[in-house]
């Protein structure tokens, strides 16, 4: 199915998933305005959210199934496999977040059904970012996502930490938006357009000017902030720490993946002929991997450790960005799937363990979990090993793919740094396993309050099964990633 975006009906079709999700969020908003008192309301809102996510996924799948493409220039939005796969990642992450939110909101007495509305808006923003082929769309998608997540981070405003997290995230986020925006302005100034393809064409013709390069640099800064790349990462540990754990999980996965998705599309379609960004991203990747891993090593708080670990993983993904091309994009998608799963799994288990924001859960607090809650400990172990990139888990496959992409792009040094920093990461992932299995619980009742409802259990089970399944049998995932990766192409500058 090929769509002509200048025709309204076909434009609507191209935006079907976003429209479905918008519709659902409005329905949900209406419901919330009407019923927002009890836990039951909250649960219903959650189910509505899940339904919304599911129907959106169906819409995505429908477009995908019909091999939707765009005729001519992709104005504002694209319709390609990359978008569909990315959408699924966001939707899946959001759905898993919802599953672990049920018991969490109830336990923390966060009877705010608007939470789900904001979650849907954030997901919508992420989808818009992945779809956007115009800096304007991407910017607005980013802001939609950000505004929703600012609020989500500060949702538990009874806790000072949550509010503080929201403030830090907001201030720094807005600050970074300023840079992103300036970058957009400069790119616009250098190319007279904000459309990716047209930028690519224009850059191909006129070559890089200082204005364009500064604009590009500032764009990378803006995205670097969102993905928490060093040195723009410093908000991440604090904000992850302070935000409610399911929100943290969402931030670490969807927000990051969305920013990466947009970055990929932008760099490949618009800036493939500009060599400068390779160098920038190369350094960014190195610093992020090294920094994230080293900083995580110094952590005793589990949640902060995961925060730094997510910084490190952003570094790995930046390697995929550096590698570029369809291999890099494919690697990104596979890794994004794996990372989303394992990161969500880890945060989910943490949310079961913790109380009031889980900021006080130290790695050693998991001591003895292995004998008291073997399945939970097992799930956590699988997540940790996957984060470590251990064979048999999806994390390994993802890392392998990134390495292949990097090596294929002759980035052997980068690949080597990646694996060396992975070794460092063993220094903080393993202690978690060590604590769970090799240390006795400090007191008999150390783990009695670890609660999990069946939906969270379902989420974690899904995560674990998927991690192991993709770890052993990744063929299907690869197919998706490869076709999706091939679907964004550098702009052909010779024809125009």
């Amino acid at each position: 199915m090929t769509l002509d975006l200048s025709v309204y009906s076909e434009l609507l079709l191209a935006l079907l998933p976003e429209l479905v999700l918008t519709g659902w969020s409005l329905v949900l908003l209406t419901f919330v305005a009407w019923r927002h008192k009890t836990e039951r309301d909250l649960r219903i809102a959650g189910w509505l959210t899940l339904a919304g996510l599911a129907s959106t996924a169906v819409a995505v799948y429908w477009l995908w199934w019909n091999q939707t493409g765009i005729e001519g220039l992709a104005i504002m939005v694209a319709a390609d496999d990359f978008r569909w796969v990315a959408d699924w990642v966001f939707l899946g992450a959001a759905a898993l977040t919802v599953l672990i939110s049920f018991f969490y909101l109830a336990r923390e007495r966060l009877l705010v059904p608007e939470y789900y509305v904001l979650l849907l808006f954030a997901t919508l923003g992420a989808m818009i970012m992945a779809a956007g082929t115009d800096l304007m769309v991407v910017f607005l998608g980013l802001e939609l996502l950000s505004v929703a997540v600012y609020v989500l981070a500060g949702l538990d405003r009874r806790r000072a930490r949550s509010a503080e997290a929201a403030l830090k995230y907001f201030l720094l986020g807005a600050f970074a938006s300023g840079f992103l925006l300036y970058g957009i302005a400069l790119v616009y100034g250098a190319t007279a357009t904000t459309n990716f393809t047209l930028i690519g064409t224009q850059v191909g013709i006129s070559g890089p000017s200082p204005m364009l390069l500064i604009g590009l640099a500032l764009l990378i800064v803006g995205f670097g902030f969102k993905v928490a790349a060093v040195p723009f990462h410093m908000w991440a540990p604090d904000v992850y720490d302070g935000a409610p754990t399911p929100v943290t999980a969402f931030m670490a996965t969807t927000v990051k993946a969305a920013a990466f998705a947009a970055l990929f599309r932008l760099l490949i379609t618009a800036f493939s002929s500009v060599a400068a960004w390779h160098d920038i991203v190369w350094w960014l990747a190195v610093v992020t991997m090294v920094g994230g891993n080293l900083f995580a090593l110094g952590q005793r708080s589990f949640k902060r450790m995961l925060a730094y670990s997510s910084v490190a993983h952003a570094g790995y993904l930046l390697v995929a960005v550096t590698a570029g091309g369809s291999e890099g994009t494919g690697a990104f998608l596979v890794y994004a799937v794996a990372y989303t799963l394992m990161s969500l799994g880890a945060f989910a288990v943490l949310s079961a363990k913790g109380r009031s924001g889980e900021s006080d859960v130290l790695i050693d607090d998991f001591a003895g979990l292995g004998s008291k809650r073997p399945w939970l400990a097992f799930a956590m172990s699988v997540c940790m090993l996957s984060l470590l990139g251990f064979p048999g888990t999806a994390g390994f496959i993802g890392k392998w793919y990134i390495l292949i992409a990097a090596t294929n792009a002759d980035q052997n040094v980068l690949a080597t740094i990646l694996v060396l920093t992975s070794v460092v990461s063993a220094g903080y992932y393993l202690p978690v396993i060590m604590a769970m299995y090799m240390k006795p619980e400090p007191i008999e009742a150390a783990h009695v309050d670890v609660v999990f409802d069946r939906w969270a259990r379902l989420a974690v089970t899904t995560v674990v099964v998927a991690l192991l399944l993709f770890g052993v049998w990744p063929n299907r995932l690869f197919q998706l990633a490869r076709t999706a990766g091939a679907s964004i192409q550098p702009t052909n500058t010779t024809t125009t």
Partner: protein
Amino acid sequence: MLLSPALAISAVLFTLGVAGVLLRRNAIVIFMCIELMLNAVNLTFVALAQRLGMGGQIFVFFVMAVAAAEAGVGLAIILAVFRHKQSVSLQNMNLLRD
């Protein structure tokens, strides 16, 4: 004709915004400095729009929308923080740290 001065002024304003963020501790004032940065960008857009077409002006329109949205959310957050700390000074935002 006006483009170069506009870009220069906008760069100065942007830098002033950044410097303000670096210089201040009051969350609200920092937010205002960020608004200053956005306005500097707006100036760039408008100046460019004069030469490159309406796209720049449209963008300024959206920037204003974004600024409004951020202002709403941001000030709400600042209020929420103030409730806890009776202060909006970032110096006191030290619960979350390594």
